[in-house]
């Protein structure tokens, strides 16, 4: 018997992965959570049927969303992570000795619980003494924060579900207030390829551009996400993502990574013409 998991990337495009075992399935207060084993991508976490993490390619996403801002902001010590209940971002952050505090705001305790049990390779550092998990609505949490963080990492699901509030102007504005004067916000900004995703990416970029003085987009290749092609937003009050990169300082940390390098860092901000055009359209 063959078991296949399929995800619609558009109503007319389907991405399928053969699976061997369904390990976890639960409808939480917010979403449908599933974890299963696959021969090609290892263990996979899906939320509402969308791939969130696979053991095989999560390193690309988690490294790119973490090390890009961490290598630019050399004094980032107090960090807020939103979403990311699987623990991948926290795992990367805890590799920095300078990090003093990681507040993780995740609305769904069931995601954290499930990943602790079934995705230990991601959730392995959730017990780090610097990590505090807040099970709360992120908008509510961040409304109360002012001048409090060096870095905010927004690791949300796509903008069409329970994470919709994390793609709004009110949210980006609250992030701006919650950051110190040299703070950085990084967010996953979806795929620029298929029309619906591309529009969402433009909308979110438009709102960030109007909130932060510096706003750039960078890219990565992530096989299990729509079109295999993903973007991140880099919004900042002071540091430029490329000009203020101190590659030597980061390399001196001797951190082994599998995707991120300081050379790739610069390249990731060089975007294809069609993406540049889409961004410019909303920057005016």
């Amino acid at each position: 018997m063959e078991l296949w998991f399929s995800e619609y990337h558009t109503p007319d495009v389907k991405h399928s992965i053969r699976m061997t075992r369904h390990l976890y399935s639960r409808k939480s207060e917010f979403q449908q959570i599933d974890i299963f084993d696959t021969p090609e991508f290892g263990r996979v976490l899906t939320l509402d049927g969308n791939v969130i993490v696979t053991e095989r390619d999560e390193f690309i996403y988690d490294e790119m969303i973490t090390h890009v801002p961490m290598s630019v902001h050399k004094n980032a010590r107090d960090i807020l992570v939103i979403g990311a209940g699987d623990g991948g971002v926290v795992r990367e952050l805890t590799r920095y000795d300078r990090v003093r505090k990681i507040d993780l705001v995740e609305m769904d305790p069931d995601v954290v619980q499930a990943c602790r049990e079934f995705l230990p390779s991601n959730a392995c550092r959730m017990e780090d003494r610097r990590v505090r998990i807040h099970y709360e609505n992120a908008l509510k949490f961040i409304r109360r924060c002012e001048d409090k963080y060096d870095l905010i990492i927004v690791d949300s699901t796509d903008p069409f579900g329970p994470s919709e509030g994390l793609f709004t102007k009110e949210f980006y504005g609250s992030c701006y207030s919650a950051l110190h004067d040299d703070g950085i916000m990084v967010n996953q900004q979806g795929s620029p390829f298929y029309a619906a995703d591309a529009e969402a990416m433009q909308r979110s970029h438009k709102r960030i551009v109007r909130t932060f003085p510096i706003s750039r987009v960078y890219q990565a290749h992530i096989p299990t996400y729509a079109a295999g092609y993903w973007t991140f937003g880099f919004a900042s009050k002071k540091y430029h993502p490329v000009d203020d990169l101190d590659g030597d300082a980061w390399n001196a940390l001797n951190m082994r990574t599998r995707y991120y390098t300081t050379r790739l860092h610069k390249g990731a901000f060089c975007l294809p013409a069609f993406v540049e055009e889409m961004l410019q359209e909303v920057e005016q």
Partner: protein
Amino acid sequence: MKRNLTSQMRAPIYEALEQFRQMRVVPFDVPGHKRGRGNPELSAFLGQQCVSIDVNSMKPLDNLCHPVSVIREAEDLAAQAFGAAHAFLMVGGTTSSVQSMVLTVCKRGDEIILPRNVHRSVINALVLCGAVPVYINPEVDQRLGISLGCRREQIEKAIREHPNAKAVMVNNPTYYGVCSDLRAIVKMAHAAGMLCLADEAHGTHFYFGTGLPVSAMAAGADMSSVSMHKSGGSLTQSSLLLIGPDVHQGYVRQIINLTQTTSASYLLMSSLDISRRNLALRGRQVFHQVADMAEYAREEINTIGGYYAFGKELTNGNSVFDFDHTKLAVHTRDIGLAGIEVYDYLRDEYDIQIEFGDIGNILAYLSMGDRMQELERLVSALAEIRRLHQKDSASLFSEEYIDPIVEMSPQEAFYAEKESVPLENSEGMICSEFVMCYPPGIPILAPGERITGEILDYIRFAKEKGCSMTGPEDPDITRLNVLK
């Protein structure tokens, strides 16, 4: 109020439509789209399910003009659910319910006692029937600049001074959720031989929730207009007209039929039927949740600073006898912004549409369809608007209730010989048309009223602040029609 829950589980119109669908009756009657086949674009847009029940009145589906079977049963169930002697399903909006109430109790020359902050549909009804309004000046909360309910003493005085008035009308509640002492007003009206009418456009949930202000039927009022499509969850334009035991049902039906369509929409009627069932079975729990959400939002908004989301603390035993705590109204003047400005920011910058903004306040309408995640967005957006746009509050104008000077009946003025004059030259003249600030749709001028300098100042200010002004023939409101 006792409801028979077993019978409330029924929805006769809905059931009849379901059965009708299965009968596959061949339509050689109207509507001409014939279950959508003749209009594929409309069917694709609205959905097959929807167009297939857009049908004509016929024997198995009854007729709203003279209901004898399934519509009659649906009305009986609605009456039972709302504790009324009878309930009429209405398809012309709550405007049609309000007009039917007025036309039932008044004829030409009769007086009717009304708070000035009535909905425009009430004054339109006076134009239709020729009755004369006796306005009661609702109290104004000086800090918030909103009109409150009527004080008992004011009603008493109006009744004493106009002993021949036919009825007293009350908003239960106002747009902002303020309730007058309805039980006492009903007693005073009845003691003077008058009927008591309630505009419950914003009070459907009073019949089903707990800890909410008293409903008109429970307070002994004689007629009430209930906007089921607001807090009741039915389709836009569907409404209910409730009557008590002392109002003649057959006469009300005749009055309704004067202006009601003879092709009532089954979409609207079935939505009333299904919504009534939902309210009867689950209303208590639903409105408990809505009230909890509103309470939560009030706390969060009041934590932001500058804003004042008001609630039950406004009650004063008289002009604010009770407050509907499912309403979420926020005073914005202390951050230096008019309510209408905050309303515009929310829509233009944050993609959040709220019910209205007036000079000093906004109102976000919460209902059974709301979720916490959207409520968080609203609160955060308000916090952001304060952070980015806060101003000095000194320059704002205080909204004052302006005492109308009624010179003649609205009907007489509406049909009188008139001329158009520039706004600035109209002072002292008698207006022959409406000027409304919309929303919330409370008249600044009604036909038959004298135009004063104070009124002209108000119109200029409200226009400047971007309130939508409607009513006059001249859409830009640079001119007014006045009596010759």
